[in-house]
């Protein structure tokens, strides 16, 4: 094997074993249930049959592994600066990757690969489906050379900038913080934010507690109906009131503690090009924020926060790796409880100027119809379930319906009232939310793709939906004037396609 990758080449010959192991693993994973059934159901005189079947399976997988190995080729097209990978026995795939788009090349080794002495080489672009571009068996030396070749083109700049940022972070301690959040502000943030999330958490907690309580009682062989009725008796409206008050208190307490742990000693320091952020009570977290990497900037404020003159800011960065879905959250940098002056300073730093709201588009009243419809359907489902589960005194739940209707209708109404899409030359701003009113700001050149959607029954009313795809997630605007949306889409496409700016 030569050290140039110009001609299509296969993996290491031992790759057959890896391919075989992969296929076999996949097969077992897909078929474990029927296999178990067969093993348990079969009588002992049929063991020979099973063994033969197993052997056939192994041989089949070996053949598949060999064919997979035969059909897996890769090469480096130096002229076009592409890495080309072909694979597949029956379903064939050919993947071309522009070298400049490669973000990471990882060399890994699993146990099986260790035994055989090969490595796997995974290529990561900002696009999704990480598993697609993976060479499963390659010699170490070859892997290292290939990695070097692949990264030769693209990543140089990145490496330099990372080094730079390290130097910057060493100098952090010398500069004065640009934003520092006091305990009083943290307290304010704690009592005003994240109600929904905490309530949901508490409800699930309460339900599991109730369930396990019931389970515990049933194991002690206490008559279940007496317990149930005791529950229902004690859960009169008065005690419901106490419960709600207690719940509210608990929510506030949890929120305050959470906020303090997460954002204790929050400091933001302005660097030449970036922002350095430190926070945390137990574990001090250092984050370096490069404004170019921020894809969506957002700030949100609810009624209480408005009265207290504080707001939450979020900077969503590009998540380079689709496979690490859970890491997406850590790509969001939160600034809790800043005032509007600090917000403007941060916006100026990240976006270059304070974004002005352009011409607004409001959603059509069909927004209300669709939300009300889904709310009623949800209620209907709940009722059918209750009906079938034979809950005795359904009248008890009637007041709850009014609570639900009141809550949902206000959420729908305010959600509708607050929903707006502003756009001008430099920014797209989406305002949404019933309680926490959020403004999401996107620079048009950071849009990756645009999707529009229109149901046929909305055609006459000229209403449609819009999704802007960015590297930090999607932004939706629904039930807008479709003619205006189409016009904006054309404009954004024009902006993206003529933009010379680097989106990351």
């Amino acid at each position, binding site marked *: 094997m030569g050290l140039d990758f110009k001609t299509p080449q296969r993996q290491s010959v031992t790759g057959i074993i890896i391919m075989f192991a992969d296929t076999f693993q996949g097969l077992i994973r897909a078929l474990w249930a029927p296999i178990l059934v067969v093993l348990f159901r079969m009588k002992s005189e049929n063991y020979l049959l099973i063994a033969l079947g197993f052997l056939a399976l192994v041989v089949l997988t070996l053949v598949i592994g060999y064919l997979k190995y035969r059909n897996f080729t890769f090469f480096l097209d130096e002229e076009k600066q592409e890495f080309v990978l072909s694979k597949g026995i029956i379903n064939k*795939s050919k993947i*071309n990757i522009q070298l400049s*788009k490669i973000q990471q090349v990882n060399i890994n080794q699993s146990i099986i690969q260790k035994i055989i002495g090969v490595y796997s080489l995974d290529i990561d672009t900002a*696009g999704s489906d990480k598993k697609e571009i993976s060479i499963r068996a390659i010699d170490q030396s070859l892997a290292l050379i290939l990695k070097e070749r692949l990264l030769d083109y693209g990543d140089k700049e990145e490496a330099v900038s990372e080094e730079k940022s390290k130097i910057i972070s060493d100098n952090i301690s010398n500069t004065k913080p640009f934003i520092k959040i006091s305990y009083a502000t943290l307290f304010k943030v704690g009592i005003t934010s994240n109600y929904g999330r905490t309530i949901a958490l508490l409800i699930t907690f309460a339900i599991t507690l109730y369930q396990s309580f019931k389970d515990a009682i049933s194991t002690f062989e206490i008559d279940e109906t007496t317990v149930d009725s005791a529950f229902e008796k004690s859960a009169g409206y008065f005690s419901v009131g106490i419960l709600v008050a207690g719940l509210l208190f608990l929510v506030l307490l949890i929120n305050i503690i959470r906020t303090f742990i997460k954002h204790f000693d929050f400091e933001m320091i302005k660097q030449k090009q970036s922002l350095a952020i430190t926070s945390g009570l137990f574990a001090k977290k250092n984050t370096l924020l490069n404004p170019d990497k921020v894809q969506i900037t957002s700030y949100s404020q609810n009624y209480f926060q408005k009265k207290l003159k504080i707001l939450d800011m979020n900077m969503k960065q590009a*998540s380079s790796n689709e496979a690490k879905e859970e890491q997406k959250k850590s790509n969001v940098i939160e600034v809790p409880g800043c005032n509007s002056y600090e917000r403007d300073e941060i916006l100026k730093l990240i976006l270059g100027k304070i974004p002005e709201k352009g011409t607004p588009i409001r959603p059509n009243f069909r927004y209300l119809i669709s939300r009300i419809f889904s709310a009623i359907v949800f209620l209907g489902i709940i009722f059918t379930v209750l009906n079938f589960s034979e809950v005795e005194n359904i009248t008890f739940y009637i007041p709850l319906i009014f609570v639900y209707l009141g809550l949902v209708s206000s959420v729908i109404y305010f959600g509708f009232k607050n929903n707006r899409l502003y756009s001008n030359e430099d920014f797209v701003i989406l305002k949404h939310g019933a309680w926490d009113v959020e403004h999401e700001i996107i620079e048009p050149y950071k849009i990756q793709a*645009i*999707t*529009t959607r229109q149901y046929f029954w909305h055609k006459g009313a000229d209403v449609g939906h819009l999704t802007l*795809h960015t590297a930090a997630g999607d932004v939706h605007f629904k039930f807008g004037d479709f003619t205006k949306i189409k016009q904006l*889409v054309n404009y954004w496409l024009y902006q993206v396609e003529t933009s010379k700016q680097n989106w990351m």
Partner: protein
Amino acid sequence: MEFTNETIDLDLLPKFEEVHFSSLHKDYVKVVYINIAIVLLIIAIGIGALIYFNEEMQQSLAYSIFGISYMVFALVLFFSSVASVKRRAYAVREKDILYKRGLLSTTTTMMPFNRIQHVAMHEGAFSRIYNLAQIQIYTAGGSTSDVKISGIEKEKAESIKELLMQKIQNQI
């Protein structure tokens, strides 16, 4: 250098909604037929096995319930799939690629060339019989914005892919 900064007239910009879209190759519907047939066959085998092993179900009522729902399902699947294939279309413009699909709704995704990350071409077993291929286009917008266009003639798919790769390269 002459610097101009005229206001852009939004109405003069090229309109994506007026682009001529090309539909999928007419043979692709046959591939869909084959796929539907396989799905229906598997379900039929499943129902058959269920009835065969459950003696309670071996009565005319169960037969008619299964039969009717199977027929309804088969018809709905058939007509919706065929109709949705007819509604799928794509267009390659100078600077972006558009893909339109959807039965009840019309969904159009637009991907500028300078935001495409990489391109893959897949050939399914049945598609290959009719010399068709699928193009998958990745952007950094994540899986929600990645587009798969099936049922393109292989040579055409190859040339689209070639074109995309060339465009990507030119941006650097």
